[in-house]
């Protein structure tokens, strides 16, 4: 009996590791160059901004000699490329400089505001995924039905509505009229003295410390903005889920699974969704990254002390250290999320493990 061995079975493990290392190297190189580009672009924008940065530091009423002195101290009189090098040097030694606006080192500020955004975006994505995926599956399975149309329209409206507008309207309804939710910020001022966050993710922290009254308060603050962001990621996720599911459901292996006598539930959730999950991971990661930036407008409306608000505030005040720091951090998170989704993709899809 002549059994044909295929090449892939015979491929040695060592080669696999080398290929992985190579891929990792390429990825890191890409990440580093992207980073540098990121820095250059932001730096350039920061220096072209038609705002006198010294004005941001001193205000309008400072006498002229003070203005000149500070300009020199800050190095704004140096040529652009020198300023850039000084900046890069700072970054490489882990120093993002001080924020003009808050006087703190930028890293300290970001450590404070980032968890707020992370908490918001994470909750939003969780809502989006836990509602969006089942909706997408439902729409795909009942393709063309009323349910499908409803999911589609819900999704399309999500794509079409201005987030800040919806935020305003829902704030009026749920806070001003119904008093269901709390506003503004992340936590009531009452807890300023009784609650010490550890990670900065207030929901986790309060639950961890067993402070359920705090947890409830935090929840009342976060639920509305998180639901709004959740709606937007839901729109995206359900739509993508639908199309991935339609694609998987038309595959032959689904016919095979049915031919085996599997129940429809098992075919859909055990096989089709399991396969659709592979690209879905990327979609969810992308939507997470999208929420991080989508929070810029939402955070403005909800006075949410996150990084979006921090960046917009800093930008308007020509606080370039803060803007650059914030952008680098968001860029890092973006790149990190990409890496993570790539890794997840690899673990979920056996086909990518070798080759």
């Amino acid at each position: 009996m002549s059994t044909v061995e295929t090449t892939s079975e015979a491929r040695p493990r060592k080669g696999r590791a080398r290929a992985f290392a190579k891929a990792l190297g390429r990825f890191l190189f890409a990440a580093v160059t992207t980073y540098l580009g990121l820095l250059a672009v932001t730096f350039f924008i920061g220096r072209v901004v038609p705002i006198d940065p010294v004005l941001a530091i001193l205000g309008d009423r400072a006498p002229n000699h003070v203005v000149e002195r500070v300009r020199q101290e800050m190095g704004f009189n140096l040529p652009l490329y020198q300023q850039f090098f000084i900046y890069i040097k700072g970054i490489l030694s882990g120093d993002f400089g001080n924020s003009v606006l808050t006087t703190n080192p930028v890293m300290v500020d970001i450590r404070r505001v980032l968890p707020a955004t992370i908490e918001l975006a994470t909750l939003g994505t969780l809502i989006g995924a836990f509602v969006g995926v089942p909706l997408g599956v439902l729409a795909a399975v009942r393709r063309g039905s009323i349910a499908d149309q409803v999911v589609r329209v819900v999704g399309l409206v999500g794509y079409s509505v201005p987030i800040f507008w919806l935020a305003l309207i829902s704030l009026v309804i749920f806070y001003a009229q119904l008093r269901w939710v709390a506003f503004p910020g992340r936590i009531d001022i009452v807890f300023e003295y009784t609650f010490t966050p550890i990670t900065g993710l207030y929901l986790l922290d309060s639950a961890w410390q067993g402070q359920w009254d705090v947890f409830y308060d935090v929840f009342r603050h976060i639920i509305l903005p998180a639901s709004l962001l959740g709606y937007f990621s839901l729109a995206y996720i359900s739509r993508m889920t639908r199309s991935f599911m339609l694609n998987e459901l038309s595959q032959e292996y689904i016919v095979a699974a049915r031919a085996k006598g599997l129940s429809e539930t098992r075919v859909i959730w055990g096989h089709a969704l399991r396969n659709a999950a592979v690209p879905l991971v990327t979609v969810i990661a992308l939507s997470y990254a999208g929420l991080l930036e989508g929070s810029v407008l939402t955070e403005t409306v909800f006075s949410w002390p996150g990084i979006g608000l921090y960046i917009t505030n800093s930008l308007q005040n020509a606080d370039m250290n803060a803007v650059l720091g914030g952008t680098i951090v968001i860029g890092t998170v973006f790149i990190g999320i990409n890496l993570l989704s790539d890794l997840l993709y690899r673990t979920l899809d056996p086909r990518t493990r070798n080759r």
Partner: protein
Amino acid sequence: MTAPASPSPAMSRREWLLSDRPQSRLQARLGRAYVTWRQFTANRLAVVGLLIIIALLFIAAFANLIATHDPVVGDLRNARLLPPGTAEYLLGTDDQGRDIFSRLIYGSRLTLLVIVLVAVISAPIGLIVGTVSGYAGGWVDATLMRITDIFLAFPKLVLALAFVAALGPGIQNAIIAIAITSWPPYARIARAETLTVRRSDYISAVKLMGASPLRIIVRHVMPLCISSLIVRVTLDMAGIILTAAGLGFLGLGAQPPLPEWGAMIASGRRFILDQWWVAAMPGIAILIVSLGFNLLGDGLRDALDPKEAGQ
């Protein structure tokens, strides 16, 4: 060949269009367009979208005839913040005593201006970068994609904000900023499409005819990318409208007294508790128009790009 190039009496126009043995280039092209059109119109929601867009075009074209008031000059003394339905003010007035309805009508021109210009600027850039990058491969690809990645690694809105901050607020600068931030995804799409067709036999076949790379890209690869690009651009229109409105909302977009919808929401925001209509009306206008584009894009995708449907 006896069949005439024009529809014979025995053959209805529809049959002529649907004929699977077209007699001329024109008939083939029209037939194809007709099939696409039928696929498109089979999607009722898409037709609704198309109607919305047509209405938008109509309104923008005849704004001066439709509007009942001057969009910029209001009656501060007598007509400030009147609720909808007040005599002669259909949708109420804003804090400058201007007719919101008329402002919305004129605002459609700005909306159109933004999306058309952004599309005209960013789609070709994305198409060229993407196809060249995908087809050339190697260091050209690496370089172009690096640049694309850099732009993609930015939170889009923050980047647009930064650009507007650098260029100064105003509608032209908002358009430039949005265009600068919207081409990278197009480049990605075009590149992905190019990569899938680059190794395909039909491109190999053209290469075997002796066609130059330029010719292959322009005549054979680009047309293939265009339909998914059109779909994507149409779907993006909504996003562009929203981004422009977002910039307007943050005060960095169109300048007063221009009746830009996002800026109208921003100025209405102050009255949201008592005079809800000032902010609500432009929000609804944005919602309707971007919904229109989304519906249209969805339908176009199903018609032009069946295999991409849903993505």
